[in-house]
């Protein structure tokens, strides 16, 4: 039996707080064999990152390893002095962080950072190091690496930067690579490439990988073995296939269940059509939005040519009353811009938006109509609730502003009713948003949206800040409310599975252009546009493992 | 020997007729010379003129005999034509010395060393006006186009602002305005060779820095020494203080007339117009306390707005009543203000020695008889326009008497305010009888009659309490041990008078 590269035994990481200590990792044991990719999954806050940080020795103060041991190739490392631990980093343990945008120092070129790292660990001359850096970059899949090496990080796309980060992590050919959510900031299409690179590099260099993620799809594609964490403990370990097919622990079962699939499944919930279908409730007609770029506000006063960037380009679609229209597309494709124009936050450069026959940008009556009928649910439930307001005031604001209810008791009654609608206890109305969990917050946001008794709700990535398990609950709630009130939804998401599950029709945006638009099933099962096909192909699917 | 001499502000210009201002004159006296000068006791002394007298049989003409053998720094001879030129220049449009020579009708050179001044009328005290009018070299001036005095408003400067050619004991070596002026001995000077052969004249505005510079041995003589530092410095090893009375008095003034005061709570009458109130105000003014505490002994309390140097000063006039708060209270009640009243006192805070502190002290004293004073303290640049516009009800002012003659005080402070006279009669005191007498002084040709009139006017001024004098200022020069600079009553010390031990 070969010796494991990494062996964690009963690891405990504690954060001492004012008068109590908080155990972020509570007795975790993991072994990773050479050449093996071990996935670590679990809900947010389960202690995944903390385990990784403990291994590389970068736990932030006041956190510390309280007990347990960590061995690298049999040699104990957790109790080494800081100077010795520092010597391990980069050399024997490489680390990849989640966010490629912030992991690279913006003031140095990619080459400088690579060469610096290489020369720190390997006895190479400047020129040799540079050559190695170029090799590493090409190996990580950066085309024309020799030319790009002197670029600054901001001159690279997100996916390229993440590849640079990976190149940096493997620069000194470490025995162990810890990848903490290496792809969660990336688009599906880019994500697939990065995973491919990571996997290839590992097999070439024979390094062991600890892959931390909450995305079961990624795990399914990459990992050999799986560790499921919950509340700082390991609840289940095994091969990926085993666990996905036969999860034993209730938590794992829940986790696997809650992963939406883009394949049509039995559990599919398509909202029941509303009582009477009068055709298009929302009509978006030739919508265009341009942004001026490259000019400060001061110089706008000066005459001169204005450079224009067209974020949304002649987008048209309709949504029947009581139906959900899904809008998908990669990051930056113009989804949010569309949403903002529809809810009245951003004025369209040209084009028309009709809600129930009223042009909402025509001013006057249309404007008034929009305020009553259109509401929005935002991606980040925390950011969409004013942290200084109590829940009651947050939910009551639309009623007060629109004059739906003015007197105090009436307002309170309605708020209580709304809270019950979203399955929250009315007693929470005196709390502040920060006292709730993410899922609860999103419910409050939904309650606020319902408070103005809208007919049409625009949901911009309503669940992407949420855990898979919570995501399911929120989506359920949305469907129920749609059935109950006959709501019309515009659902924006880059998660194709979510869109597939929720919407009856889908539009695919690419660079501001609506490349495809039609019934959900038709598009998912039989995509026409190349872009749609590419998008669908890139989605990792756990069913492949199964 | 070299003397490093510091004071608070620099001469404004080197053009000798452009500014009538003490600091400017002080520096000019070292380079240029005047016909007459004043010694440290305030007496007129010959300088470029050796003799002066009214012309036999014509009391409207003054005759001056000039010193012979005097040369300007550039080697030109000093003659009568230079005097004629200089007096005319001093009388010309942009000259600030004009006022002093207003009564001069014409100046003529009788011969190379005699000059006659034709006055508009009898002008007994005219020679007093000559102590700060400097004589320039006509030839040099013409060469350098200096006929017109520098006019600051025109935006043009002239050659004389930074260049000099006088007959004085020192020549200009270098000048960095507001920083340092270096003077070197004029070897060919007619007078006795002074002990000081080089002068570094330094401007140090901040009082503490000035004293520090002396204490740290970076300067030898400091002018404008704050009174509070005098005691300490004279007790400090290696330093000493020369003190002496200055020809300047400090007084309070108030508004006369029936018009109610702008800053008072009494809106139907002017309390200051009531002689009883003025008496009460004098009775609470504890001049001795101010002298002792505020001035640290460095002042000479006085009961008359006239320094002892000035003709017309007498001991009786100078006497002042002992403070008597009880009596003052009674007087206030008698005057109809048993509860006192409120008023604003305007004081400068950067013009006279401890000006603001004197006012603050008096505010406290007035409080004892219910006069509730708000103190408005301003830099002189703001204080001055205020009182010139008669906008002050109650103010502090200092007054120097450069002519050493009482008429100077009367003209500006006592005469009814007109375009020409009573410029600083801020209280708008008006007494036609006095006005007549004041005007007569300027044309009186008999010295005895004139003295009598002066005495009469002082009687009335004192009795009416036209002004409320506090004290005469005392000058103090601080210097290192081994150097002595006697005090000059106009605060225009001459480095020629410095002696070394």
């Amino acid at each position, binding site marked *: 039996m070969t010796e494991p590269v990494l062996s964690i035994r009963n690891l405990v990481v504690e954060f001492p707080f004012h008068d109590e200590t908080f155990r972020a990792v509570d007795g975790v044991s993991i072994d990773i064999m050479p050449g093996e990719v071990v996935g670590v999954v679990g809900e947010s806050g389960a202690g995944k990152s903390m385990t990784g940080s403990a291994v*590389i020795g*970068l736990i932030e103060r006041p956190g510390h390893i309280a007990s347990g041991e960590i061995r690298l190739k049999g040699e104990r490392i957790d109790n080494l002095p800081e100077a010795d631990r*520092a010597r*391990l980093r*980069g*050399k024997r343990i490489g*680390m990849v*962080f989640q966010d490629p945008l912030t*992991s*690279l*120092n913006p*003031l140095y*070129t990619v080459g400088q950072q690579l060469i610096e*790292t290489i020369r*720190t*660990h390997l006895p190479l001359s400047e020129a040799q190091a540079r050559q190695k850096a170029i090799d590493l970059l090409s190996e990580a899949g950066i085309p024309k690496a020799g030319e790009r090496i002197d670029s*600054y990080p901001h001159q690279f796309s997100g996916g390229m930067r993440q590849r640079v980060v990976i190149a*940096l992590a493997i620069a*000194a050919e470490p025995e162990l690579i810890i990848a903490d959510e290496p792809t969660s900031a990336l688009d599906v299409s880019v994500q697939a490439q990065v995973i491919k690179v990571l996997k290839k590099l590992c097999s070439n260099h024979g390094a062991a990988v600890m892959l931390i993620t909450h995305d079961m799809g990624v795990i399914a594609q990459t990992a050999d073995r799986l560790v499921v964490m919950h509340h700082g403990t390991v609840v289940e370990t095994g091969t990926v296939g085993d666990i996905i097919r036969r999860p034993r622990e209730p938590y794992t079962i829940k986790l696997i269940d809650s992963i939406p699939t883009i394949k049509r499944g039995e559990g599919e919930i398509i909202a029941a059509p509303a009582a009477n279908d009068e055709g298009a409730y929302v009509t978006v007609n030739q919508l265009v939005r341009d942004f001026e*770029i*490259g*000019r*400060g506000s*001061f110089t706008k006063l*000066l005459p001169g040519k204005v*450079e224009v960037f067209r974020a949304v380009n002649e987008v048209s679609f309709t949504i029947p009353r009581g139906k959900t229209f899904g809008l998908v597309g990669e990051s930056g494709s113009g989804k949010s811009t569309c949403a903002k124009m529809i809810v009245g936050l951003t004025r369209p450069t040209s084009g028309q938006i009709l809600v129930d026959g009223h042009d909402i940008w025509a001013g006057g009556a249309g404007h008034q109509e929009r305020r009553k009928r259109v509401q929005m649910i935002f991606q980040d439930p925390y950011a969409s609730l004013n942290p200084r307001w109590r829940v009651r005031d947050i939910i009551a604001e639309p009623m007060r502003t629109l004059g739906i209810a003015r007197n105090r008791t009436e307002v309170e009654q309605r708020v209580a009713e709304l809270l019950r609608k979203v399955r929250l206890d009315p007693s929470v109305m005196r709390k502040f948003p920060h006292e709730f969990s993410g899922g609860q917050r999103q419910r409050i946001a939904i309650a606020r949206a319902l408070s103005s008794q809208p007919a049409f709700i625009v949901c911009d990535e309503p669940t992407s800040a949420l855990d898979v398990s919570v995501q399911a609950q929120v989506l359920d709630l949305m469907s129920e409310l749609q059935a109950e009130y006959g709501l019309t939804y515009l659902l924006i998401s880059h998660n194709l599975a979510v869109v597939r599950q929720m919407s009856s029709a889908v539009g695919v945006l690419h660079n501001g252009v609506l490349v495809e638009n039609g019934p959900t099933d038709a598009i998912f099962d039989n995509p026409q546009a190349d872009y749609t096909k590419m998008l669908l192909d890139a989605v990792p699917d756990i069913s492949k493992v199964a | 020997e070299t003397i490093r001499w510091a004071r608070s*502000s620099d001469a404004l*210009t080197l053009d000798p007729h452009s500014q*009538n*201002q003490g600091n400017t004159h002080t520096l000019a006296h070292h380079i240029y010379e005047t016909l007459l000068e004043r010694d440290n006791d305030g007496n007129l002394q010959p300088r470029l003129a050796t003799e002066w007298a009214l012309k036999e049989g014509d009391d409207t003409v003054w005759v001056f005999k000039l010193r012979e053998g005097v040369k300007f720094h550039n080697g030109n001879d000093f003659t009568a034509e230079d005097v004629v030129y200089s007096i005319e220049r001093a009388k010309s449009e942009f000259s600030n010395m004009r*006022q002093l020579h207003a009564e001069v009708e014409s100046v003529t050179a009788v011969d190379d060393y005699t000059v006659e001044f034709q006055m508009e009328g009898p002008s007994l005290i005219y020679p007093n006006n000559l102590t700060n009018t400097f004589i320039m070299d006509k030839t040099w001036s013409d060469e350098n186009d200096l006929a017109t005095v520098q006019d*600051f*408003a025109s935006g043009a*400067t002239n050659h004389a*602002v930074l260049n000099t050619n006088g007959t004085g004991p020192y020549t200009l070596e270098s000048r960095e*305005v*507001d*920083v340092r002026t270096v003077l070197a001995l004029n070897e060919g000077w007619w007078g006795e060779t002074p002990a000081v052969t080089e002068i570094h004249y330094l401007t*140090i*505005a901040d009082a*503490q*820095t000035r004293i*520090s*510079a002396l*204490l740290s*041995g970076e300067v030898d003589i400091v002018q404008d020494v704050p009174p509070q530092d005098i005691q300490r410095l004279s007790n400090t090893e290696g330093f000493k203080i020369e003190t002496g009375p200055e020809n300047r008095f400090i007084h309070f003034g108030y508004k006369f007339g029936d018009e109610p005061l702008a800053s008072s709570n009494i809106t139907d009458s002017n309390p200051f117009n009531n002689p009883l109130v003025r008496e009460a105000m004098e009775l609470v003014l504890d001049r001795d306390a101010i002298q002792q505490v505020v001035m640290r002994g460095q002042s000479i309390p006085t009961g008359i707005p006239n320094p002892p140097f000035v003709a017309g000063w007498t001991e009786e006039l100078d006497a002042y009543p002992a403070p008597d708060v009880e009596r003052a209270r009674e007087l206030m009640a008698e005057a109809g203000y048993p509860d006192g009243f409120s008023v604003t006192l305007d004081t400068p805070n*950067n013009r006279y020695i401890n000006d603001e502190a004197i006012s603050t002290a008096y505010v406290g004293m007035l409080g004892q008889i219910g006069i509730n004073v708000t103190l408005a303290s301003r830099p002189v*640049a*703001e204080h*001055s326009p205020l009182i*010139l516009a008669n906008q002050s009800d109650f103010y502090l002012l200092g007054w*120097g008497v450069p002519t050493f003659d009482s008429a*100077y005080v009367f003209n500006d402070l006592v005469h009814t*305010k*007109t*375009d*020409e*006279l009573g*410029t*600083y009669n801020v209280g708008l005191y008006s007494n036609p009888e006095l006005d007549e007498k004041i005007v007569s002084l300027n044309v009186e040709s008999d010295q005895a009659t004139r003295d009598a009139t002066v005495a009469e006017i002082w009687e009335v001024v004192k009795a009416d309490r036209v002004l409320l004098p506090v004290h005469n200022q005392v000058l103090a020069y601080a210097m290192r041990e081994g150097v002595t600079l006697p005090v000059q009553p106009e605060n225009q010390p001459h480095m020629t008078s410095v002696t070394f031990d």
Partner: protein
Amino acid sequence: MLAFIARRLLQSVIVMLVVAFIAFLVFRYVGDPLANLLSQDATMADYEQARERLGLNQPFYIQFFNFVINALQGQFGVSYRLQQPVSQLILERLPATIELAVASSIIALVFGVMLGIYTALRQRAFSTGVIMTLSLIGVSLPTFLIGIGLIYVFAVELKWLPSFGRGDVVQIGWWRTGLLTQSGLRSLILPAITLSLFQLTLIMRLVRAEMLEVMRTDYIRFAKARGLSKRAINFGHALKNTMVPVITITGLQLGSVIAFAIITETVFQWPGVGSLFVNSVAAVDVPVMAAYLVFVALVFVIINLVVDILYFIVDPRLRDGARSGR
């Protein structure tokens, strides 16, 4: 880049005009220059006449117009107090102020950055607490008091350093420098320290705050994970990233060092434009005051420009940022 500089210059012109206007507006109210110009025995008629000659009785807008026209030609008139062309006065005094400002900025920068790094890296050390508290005392004392205190200790009591002035100066062209003589250098020490204290505190605290902030960024964490040496991380990665805000504030502060010099220069009788200004305020020397304010504005504008250019050098993102806009 050129377009950028042109744009900044245009903004600067506007700033200068505004400053000139404000400066001018203010002077109508600071007092009457005649109080110091005319002698004690001037008559009311003399006052009227002088007012007319100075143009003080003209309508405000005409005075301002004349001022701007003249200022454009570099003409600020003649000082009422010193009877010399103002532009000449300012040029004469400028070297002193610049030498003082630069010396104190260097002190502030060097010590500020050093102490800032030190206190950031030793966040919890006792010495850090002491330095932080001491630095606060530096800003809790009014500048004039610090100046007087230093004079008292080092000039009067210890007699180590001169108490006032610039010492001996050497003329190089129109520039009169005190940096080449021993007495000139000795004279510079106390005022430079006095002037730098406030800026030093500010820069130190800023660098510390920025360092702490940067030390928490992902790229520093990642740099650690890459196994870079401590020195490379602290000085190569962290310090360079703190530079952008530090440059901004330091730039602004440099401008205010020149302006702040008014108090230091007064206390130390430093013959620079600051003391010229203070003396002019007392004498209501309007031409000097106006020129001074315009001068300060000019300095500020130049510094801002330099700061902006420095940004470009330090931060590569901005180099491209100007092009792409995003």
